[in-house]
């Protein structure tokens, strides 16, 4: 187990190099630079522009800039934002709870609905229930996330007026930020109205962000479950006279979960990229929204640092998922 963790940890080094290099290269490939962005519509005289470029260190050759950046990151410094002049890490940490809150509930929604839906589809294979679950999940998976979000906003927020259009909480509530998680903060403040407002703001983004993982989890659970239900050990469980729910939820599900857990882990990465779209549409003040603004203003440190931090999180989640296999599957634990 220990060597397993070490081996996985060693993989982080090349991943780190790849991620920083890619983030660095991509942001420098887009036309424009931060100085151009600062100059606004009237433009800027070449001498001032050259001075600013030199000030930001952007006049040096790219390899030098990259080496410099990596050295800086290795010392734990992600730089400061060129637009707000705040340290990138601090900005990230302030905004990250909002993204985590959204991603957590999206994943919770996807698992809580997707797993049972997949199990039911497998048990009722080739019936109306199965076709319904599979049809709906295929539709959900195929829908562009921004279009789906706009449809929901138009219907639930504009037409029915049930949910707010954007933001995390209505403006009239002033919840002191202690954890950064709006629901928890509202609860701690003991403000029921704020809590209700936070929940209603969370509903649509959760639904939008959770749709694709939900579809993937439901389909994966179904196919994995179908495979497992044919196994001899399921027959053994039934030969013991166990009730059907126990056969399915204890003996079959435990085995069926192994590939589903993999998929859930992979979805976490997709969830963070999906969050960029979702947060932009719902003006959700999270890191996705922040990254988009960073790209728009060519804020190199923000984009590079943000991507690096998100990549770190995705890698950690996948490492955690790999460790989770061992808990579920004894064949891995003892290997």
């Amino acid at each position, binding site marked *: 187990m220990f060597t397993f963790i070490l081996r996985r940890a060693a993989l982080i080094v090349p991943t780190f190099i790849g991620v920083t290099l890619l983030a660095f290269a991509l942001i420098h490939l887009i036309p424009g630079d931060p100085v151009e962005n600062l100059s606004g519509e009237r433009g800027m005289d070449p001498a001032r522009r050259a001075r600013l470029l030199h000030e930001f260190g952007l006049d040096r050759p790219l390899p030098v800039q990259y080496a410099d950046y990596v050295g800086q990151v290795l010392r734990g410094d992600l730089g400061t934002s060129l637009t707000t002049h705040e340290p990138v890490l601090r900005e990230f940490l302030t905004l990250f709870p909002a993204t985590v809150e959204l991603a957590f509930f999206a994943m919770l929604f996807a698992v809580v609905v997707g797993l049972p839906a997949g199990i039911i589809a497998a048990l009722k294979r080739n019936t109306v229930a199965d076709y319904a679950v599979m049809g709906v999940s295929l539709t959900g998976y195929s829908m562009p996330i921004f279009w789906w979000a706009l449809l929901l906003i138009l219907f639930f927020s504009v037409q029915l007026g049930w949910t707010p259009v954007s933001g995390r909480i209505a403006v009239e509530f002033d919840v002191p930020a202690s954890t950064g998680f709006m629901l928890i903060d509202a609860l701690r403040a003991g403000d029921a109205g704020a809590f209700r407002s936070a929940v209603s703001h969370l509903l649509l983004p959760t639904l939008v962000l959770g749709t694709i993982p939900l579809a993937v989890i439901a389909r994966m659970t179904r196919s994995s479950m179908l495979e497992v239900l044919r*196994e*001899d*050990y399921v*027959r*053994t*469980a*039934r*030969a*013991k*006279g*166990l*009730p059907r729910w126990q056969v399915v939820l204890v*003996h079959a599900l*435990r*085995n069926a979960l192994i590939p589903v857990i993999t998929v859930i882990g992979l979805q976490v990465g997709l969830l963070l990229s999906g969050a960029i779209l979702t947060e932009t549409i719902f003006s959700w003040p999270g890191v996705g929204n922040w990254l988009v603004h960073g790209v728009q203003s060519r804020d190199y440190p923000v984009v590079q640092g943000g991507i690096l931090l998100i990549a770190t999180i995705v890698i950690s989640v996948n490492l955690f998922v790999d460790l989770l296999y061992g808990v*579920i*599957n*004894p*064949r891995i634990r*003892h290997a």
Partner: protein
Amino acid sequence: MALLEVEGLTVEFGSVATPLTAVDDVDLSIDAGEIVGCVGESGSGKSVTALALMGLVDFPGRVRARRMVFDGRELLSLSDAERRALTGKDIAMIFQDPLASLNPCFSVAFQLTETLRMHGTPEERGSARLRRARALELLQQVEIPDPTARLAAFPHQLSGGMAQRVMIAMAIACNPRLLIADEPTTALDVTVQAQVLDLLLRLQQERGMALLLITHDLAVVAETAQRVIVMYAGEQVETGPVPEIFDTPQHPYTRALLDALPEHNLDRARLKAIPGVVPGQYDRPAGCLLSPRCDFALARCSIDRPPLDGPAGRKVRCHFALDAAGRPTHGWSEEAAAGAVADTR
């Protein structure tokens, strides 16, 4: 009175309009403490029969029977819950591939105690410690070395023989009156086969439980069983006491199976074999199911399906049942047979 009495057991799969009949009108009776062998080629319906007795044939499979009485209770009229209360307790089963039959995600202890938690005595159901002690005791009874360590083991850490012993321990945990063993040694190494079979027979003797031994190993049946059922393509073709079936088989199929045994082929370079394969769903002959493969088939055999006929306890499904000398009877003639063979070619 027999412990298990089954009349006209039929299992069908597929659509109602064009069903695939896996088991067709099988009669079966097993006395308490008796060993009954069930033999036949792959695809002859032995395993499906066993699953039907256990109540494990799933939708879309359909199980019908005129009578299916276990210990005085009609199994097919029981509710699901009542049936489950018998399954795994009074009727238990072990399977062909022991390693695949154990759940890879759970320890031996969990899988063993699960049966006790389900069907054990009230004390066993109430106490995890007692269940664990019983599990240890069961592992000792199936002669597993170092049983304490094995309790914590997972199936992938067991050998095939060991896994089958665990399966047997699970099956006998609640003292079943009937144990169905579906090819219990087929997947095991030859050296282990004999050990597992010996264990099974010893437990059967000690506990006085009835044993339905499904196998395609006639030698095993000859050594152990009191009675035998020969199945072919879902039908019962011959049934009777072991010595009679082995000394004077009346059905050409039984005879052919016996002729194919290596010890009956000592003077030949090649083993005698039965040509062809068991018919499937689409090539079932209209007449006797064996007729395309039978050495003695006449024109009548491919038109007319013979009934299972004969005195109680010694029945055969053949128009021209063989006599003691192994010759077809009742008007069978060499010339007609030659003609029939010429017709079919």
